[in-house]
């Protein structure tokens, strides 16, 4: 399905990541934004609000982040594509309703502009400290999808992609950006509406009496209807059966929750997208995502110029984690270097998936500027010289 041209600001623009994100949302057909103001995600809502009237979108500023996501879930059930934007502290508050979104299998998009945490941290500095939180932050077992854009153009593209994935798999999708990309201004090309493919909502089309809100299709995703169409359905955050009625026993828990995990885990190949450069002959591969990939690619070039065979694996999709690809590459290379703007999160996943076949070097990135390549370069050099595989992650100072 092609998108509604009303929200598409066709052309070539010079936009910040945040503004590109708002444009991406509008282009994807998002018509409901609920926010609570927080640095450094403000500009997304400003842009969205400025364009809301002409596009016919709705905007609300709620009293806190708990209610913003609750409102987004409510709005999504009315048939509107819905989104919220926040940063670390807000994401922490959203975790409860993220769980509800997973349980009600409600399509929605959460954009997290990561800044330094924990606590109040540093609201105006970039970080990648919420990556594990996006996957594990709510109680109970579930799977979600998380994308990590590395440029304003990707902020635009990935926001659209996030909406598509969330409609297809009926799961909240997180766009894990960071303060650097959010405030970075670059050229963003917005294609015409007929070039933007969007995933329509998976509506139920059968007799009203036989609608079961959690009856799963072949691919384990149930179908939706809108509020107000006369289906009179019931949904609950409690463990439920196909009718959406709560049943409190372990059989139902298995029946309800296991497919929530399967509907993502069984389709990882369709979901995951990575960008690979020079991996064929690489001795060392830099695995990166988000803003860090910008430095990673530069470091790769520099290393290649000095004769080290370095490749790059950029994770567009961070969750679900590309386990298979990393495991395959681990057998071919000496080492992975993982630069992150945190004290080691995704690097743990890389360690897990390399099965002792390659060394894993962790690079604490970003202190000397996000686009600075010194740390990565020295890690890569160290990695290329290391011939035996060591236990555990090797942290580069």
């Amino acid at each position, binding site marked *: 399905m092609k998108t509604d041209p009303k929200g598409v600001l066709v052309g070539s623009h010079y936009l910040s990541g945040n503004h590109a994100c708002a444009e991406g949302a509008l282009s994807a057909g998002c018509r409901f934004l609920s926010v609570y103001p927080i640095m450094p995600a403000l500009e997304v809502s400003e842009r969205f609000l400025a364009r809301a009237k002409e596009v016919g979108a709705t905007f609300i500023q709620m009293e806190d982040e708990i209610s913003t996501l609750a409102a987004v879930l409510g709005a999504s059930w009315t048939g509107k594509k819905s989104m919220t934007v926040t940063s670390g502290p807000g994401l922490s508050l959203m975790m409860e309703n993220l769980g509800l979104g997973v349980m009600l299998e409600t399509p929605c998009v959460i954009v997290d502009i990561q800044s330094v945490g924990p606590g109040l941290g540093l609201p105006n500095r970039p970080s990648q400290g919420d990556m594990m939180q996006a*996957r594990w932050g709510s109680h109970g077992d579930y799977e979600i999808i998380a994308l990590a854009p590395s440029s304003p153009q990707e902020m635009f593209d990935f926001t659209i992609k996030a909406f598509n994935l969330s409609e297809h798999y009926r799961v909240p999708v997180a766009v894990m950006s960071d303060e650097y990309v959010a405030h970075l201004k670059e050229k963003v090309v917005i294609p015409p509406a007929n070039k933007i493919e969007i995933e329509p909502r998976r509506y139920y089309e059968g007799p009203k009496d036989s609608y079961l809100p959690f009856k799963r299709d072949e691919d384990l995703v149930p179908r939706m209807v809108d509020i107000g169409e006369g289906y009179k359905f019931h949904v609950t955050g409690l463990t439920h059966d196909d009718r959406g009625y709560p049943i409190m026993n372990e059989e139902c828990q298995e*029946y309800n929750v296991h497919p929530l995990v399967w509907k993502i885990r069984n389709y990882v190949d369709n979901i995951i997208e990575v960008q690979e450069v020079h991996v064929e002959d690489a001795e060392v591969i830099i695995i990166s995502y988000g803003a860090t990939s910008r430095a990673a690619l530069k470091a790769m070039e520099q290393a290649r110029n000095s004769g080290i065979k370095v490749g790059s694996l950029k994770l567009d999709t961070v969750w679900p984690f590309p386990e298979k690809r990393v495991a395959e590459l681990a057998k071919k290379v000496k080492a992975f270097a993982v630069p992150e703007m945190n004290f080691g999160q995704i690097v743990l996943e890389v360690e897990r998936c390399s099965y002792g076949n390659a060394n894993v070097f962790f690079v604490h990135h970003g202190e000397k*500027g996000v686009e600075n390549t010194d740390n990565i370069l020295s890690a890569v050099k160290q990695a290329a010289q290391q011939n035996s595989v060591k236990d555990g992650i090797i942290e580069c100072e």
Partner: protein
Amino acid sequence: MKANPRDVLTGVHYIDGDVAAGYGVLAAGCKFVAGYPITPSTEAAETFARVAPKGNAMFIQMEDELASISAVIGASFAGVKSMTITSGPGYTLMMEAIGFGAMLETPFVLLNIQRGGPSTGVPTKTGQADMMQSRWGSHGDYEIIAISPDSPQELFDYTIKAFNLAEMYRCPVMIMSDECVGHMTEKVVIPPAEEIELEPRRLYNGPPGEYLPFKPDGDFIPKMVKAGAGYNLYISGHVHDERGYPVTNEEFKSVYLRRLVDKIRRNKDKIIELKEENTDDAEVIVVSYGISSRVAVRGIEKAREKGIKIGNLRLVTVWPFPDEKIIDLAKTTKAFVVPEINYGQIAFEVERCCHGRANVVLVPHSGAGVHNPDDIYDAIVFAAKEKKKIEGIVEYKTKLEKLVFEGGFKLKE
């Protein structure tokens, strides 16, 4: 420091885990508990509310979990040991403040009686699916300590230990119990007060002018003072320097933040407590925690009867994760069997530390119940027989899964 006899209900009791935890809180010298009702943890709060006046302690039921945990952090800075009690959804609401507590290096304890999730899930039945959340649930980078007791007696003992760890390392300590242990009634022996060792707060005694609230001692941990004692404290949830003043300089950011993770990572050996049995020459090792470790015993015994060399590693401390221990064991054993009441959380950690040397078999469970010990036994047998190395976690298909998803099953209400 010994416990105050006034706070210790010495004797032999026949009580459930929640009540034992409530008694443990009092015995640990905790003077402030803020909570909010949530099944299945409420009994612990109720117990403490009943005994609090005895220890001249305060229990307050706040308006929500966000309030409870913030009040607990506040109380800790006022100089008393404090804790909160909750379960899944409440725990999730506390996430922002847990990161804040870690940032401020606040000693406090959090008891999470886990239940079936996600979202509202199954409030009255058990689960172990908040384990990764306890480590990663708040934004930003931090480290916490998590303990997983498996009996009412341990809920009493480890509640006291949790307070000791919190005071020693100045960080949030989570007691990650579950509904089964919380509602299990067993004999609990409470020793006399003089046998209960408590860690006093690390107080600064020098002159106010020289006090730096975040200047670490040799072991990475700074000393505290009580609020209102004339130290003119400046405590900020922002990234801060030794004085507590906000830092905006990128260079210093990691210097001050790194200590938050390093103080736990570098003291790992002192923190971690494991219970090991026959792991030296085992071909298969069961790695478990909390209620699952008790269920596993049956499967382990059965396997042993069948002549399988089976080891048992029980994680009393789940976080920080005993990386080195698993790395060592992976070198000598064929496989790990990890039973947990979720679809794989700690199993990922075990897989990570195996470095491809041993297979990892996950015995999952949906929650709302515990494993069938036969599943664990079957998984052990499978792991013992399997000769090749398998990449990735082998998810064992449990009897429950087969029942629900294979052939004409109808849900009963």
